[in-house]
């Protein structure tokens, strides 16, 4: 029975991903006194892209077409780790955070390869910058998750969520705040949101993720966009699950099943609003300030690990 729930949870997450991105862009538009596109625009965009032709540069190799496929598969597998409706997820029960982090790295690895295969300067530029950002984000991501894992005495994500559920909100120590801040900063860098990278623009001075996918079109671009949306919602769901899981049913009950989606939706909306507020409040950082941004995340995660280990 739990398998069915986990699969349903995963499908829900995949389906809701474009909606989350739509909500974020709509909220940002409202904050900037613009009407903005409707919340359902990403779905129509995906439908449009799926119907278009897939343009491939003549000099490209099969890796160019393989990259979006591997990216999507890896991101979906990573999303399968993240609990949303109840304490555990399809692969979350036994899979641990190291696998989650490195699955995201697998997706990124092939995306960068796809970008360099395009043979255009933009692809190379995007790939080179993405390599820098992901290299610097790797350490704080893992250290942040390690801090939580040490506190919860387990490496599996389901175990961590179950441990946090058992704590009272007010008993959570400052350490969790540090870990949360570090992981939030890393999430922003990973999903390419404003302070690190601007998802909306094609201005070559600033774009990282967009530069890599400039060569893609049609279904390939659709899979990449969808994978990006899944990654955003998965990271948001992970933050919620690890630091604000209250509302998820601990044991299996029909009432819990009705309440959980509503609570989850409210929390996701709150995080989306926070993100929109942050994005319209801040301008994009210069390229060589990103290392300081991620350096801050790294310092926070190191402190988190040290304090968790001390307070054991």
């Amino acid at each position, binding site marked *: 029975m739990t398998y069915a729930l986990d699969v349903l949870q995963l499908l829900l997450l995949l389906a809701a991903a474009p909606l989350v991105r739509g909500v974020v862009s709509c909220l940002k538009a409202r904050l900037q006194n613009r009407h903005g596109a409707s919340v359902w625009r990403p779905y129509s965009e995906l439908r449009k892209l799926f119907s278009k032709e897939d343009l491939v*540069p003549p000099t490209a190799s099969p890796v160019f077409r393989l990259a979006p496929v591997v990216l999507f598969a890896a991101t979906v*597998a990573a999303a399968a780790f993240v609990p949303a409706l109840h304490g555990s997820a399809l692969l979350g029960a036994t899979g641990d955070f190291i696998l989650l982090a490195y699955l995201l790295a697998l997706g*990124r690895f092939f995306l*960068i*390869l796809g970008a*360099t295969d395009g*043979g255009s300067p933009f692809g190379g530029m995007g790939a080179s910058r993405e390599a820098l950002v*992901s290299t610097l984000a790797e350490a704080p991501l893992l250290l942040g998750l*390690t801090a939580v894992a040490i506190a919860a005495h387990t490496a599996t994500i389901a175990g961590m969520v179950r441990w946090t559920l058992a704590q009272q909100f007010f008993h959570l120590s400052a350490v969790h705040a540090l870990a949360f801040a570090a992981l939030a900063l890393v999430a922003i860098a990973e999903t390419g949101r404003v302070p690190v990278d601007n998802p909306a623009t094609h201005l070559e001075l600033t774009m990282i993720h967009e530069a890599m996918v400039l*060569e893609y079109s049609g279904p390939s671009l659709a899979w990449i966009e969808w994978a990006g949306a899944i990654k955003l919602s998965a990271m948001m769901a992970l933050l919620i699950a690890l630091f604000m899981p209250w509302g998820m049913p601990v044991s299996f009950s029909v009432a819990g099943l009705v309440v959980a989606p509503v609570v989850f939706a409210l929390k996701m909306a709150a995080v989306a609003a926070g993100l929109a507020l942050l994005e319209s409040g801040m301008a994009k950082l210069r390229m060589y300030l990103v290392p300081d941004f991620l350096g801050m995340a790294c310092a926070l995660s190191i402190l988190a690990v040290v304090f968790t280990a001390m307070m054991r």
Partner: protein
Amino acid sequence: MAHILFNSLLVILLALPAVTLLASPFKALRHLSPALLMIGLVAGAVAAARSLCHPCLIASDLSSITPLPFALALDRLSAYFLLLICVVGAPVALFSFSYVERHYTGRRRDWLWALLPLFLLSMVVVVTASTAFAFLFGWELMTLFSAGLILIDGDDSQRRQKLFTYLLMMHAGAAAVVGAFFMFAPHAAGLDFASIRVAAGLMPAGVRTAVFLLAFIGFGTKAGIVPLHVWLPKAHPIAPSPVSALMSGVMLKTAIYGFVRFGFDFLGTGPAWWGYLVLAAGALSGVLGVLYALAEHDIKRLLAYSSVENIGVIYLGLGAALVFTANHAPGWAALALMGALLHSLNHALFKSLLFLGAGALADATHTLDIEELGGLFNRMRTTGTLLLIACCSIAGLPLFNGFVGEWLTFQSFLGGATLAASAPAIVLPLMAGVLALIGGLAAACFVNLYGVAFLGRPRSVEAGDAVEVPLAMRAGMALLAAACVVIGIAPAIILRPLSAIVQDLIPGASLPEGALSIARFVPWLAAMVIAIMLGVALVRRVTRLTATWACGSPALNSRMQYTSTAFTSPIRKVFAQAYRPDRTLSVEPAEQPYFPASISYHSIRTVHFEQALYRPAVNTIVAAANRLRKLQTGNIQVYLLYMFLALVLLLLFMRLA
């Protein structure tokens, strides 16, 4: 059974040089020695696999013949490393089938086929030795034969200078290893491993620390730990590709074997600072190794530096294991040691695959500089896919074997938090961050290597008309790639024997419960990812080949692509402290900087280890020698004076003694 197979391996490897030299005139027997080598190595692999399950103690004992006791044994640890040698050796031999034919002729070809088996034999003797004499016999010969193989490729003065550094450092390292072995002499009945184990228990703490430090320095020099790594990027690139595959993949592992044999088998538990020293060396080597690899254009130098990085990762695992044994947590120590041993095997597999790939590239495009390659995937499809697997494995991505070793090491770092003492509880989890940084940098380095070399447009004429390498070379590489993927997807086949080995080495070690969960979990994960990929690939799509929009300029050409320097420049800017290159920018004429006739920019990455550490040492020796040389003045009266002074001094000494 394993006993007979192992001896047959030894006999074949010993007989091969004679067979090669005898068979060299006959055209028909050209492939005799490579075939024999393959058979021998396969026999060795089977022997190793069998004795992994039930180790047979004395495999072959030549003490009655040799002047000092010389015995070989196959306990579990030796069997594991013998398996490593044979599993990597066989594909390399298969690869060399055609590589050697195409690159070497006549005497050089015979010398190579004569020295290669001896090189493998010396490594087999090192890992299976069970007496100090046998170990050191193999240890010194290993360096000599590798030097011989390097000389086959040519002996101009630049190569000789590098070879000189290599041999001198290896000899200094060997002196430390000799010291480490002989420190047991006063306490041990004989210098065979059994009595050494007994003596290790009775030794005072001071001597044990001295032995550990000597072993650390001796094996660290051979493994290529950062302060002692200076020879590695010099020696590996100048060897023929199959030989550098064996040197980087297997020879470095004999040093790891030696250090594990000393650190865990002989000395057992020691003070915690041993572990921290090894951790520090591992972290330093890991980070600096990959940073130097990022800055390289020559494939072989890049791979050599990346070997330094992977040895650093292995030392991280060993360091964690030493810290755990010091804090009486044998379970976690076993896990960390397992991670280190597994990473040794994984590194042997993908690093030799990468070096063979480099050999294939050199064979196809006659250049090793990735700045001149590009677009090779379309021209060399099999080599391209195989090296894609290799790059994914070395970057430590899931579904490939690099990840499994690093995952075990990560788990052991998490285990650090369960220790009572506060120091390891803080240090070990932080090491997870260091390992993550190393992993990230390695991924960047190898995505750069693969992307620039294989994808995009060819940057030179040779790259343009590159042709796929012959079947034997591809088959050799395919075997290694298959091994990488199999271990990546189904790690259970290697984790079970490994847990038996670590239980042998660390007494009373029961692995923590979730330790081997990856063995059950990864196959399902692989199935799910592959299923999704098939699903996505099956979605019907119309693809059209069309030139991409080039912002209005007529057409994209290969110079518009990102080169390796450009790709890695952001990372190198961020980690500039590690490089400190000395850049020289000269503008002519100097007085009008804004209307230059010519501008030249030159940047050499100063190898500051060599300048700071080794150059002064060599200079002091030469200076001392010159001062001593002045004593030999040539004047007979001064010589007479030396004699009379010596006599007077000795008489005074007699008076006092």
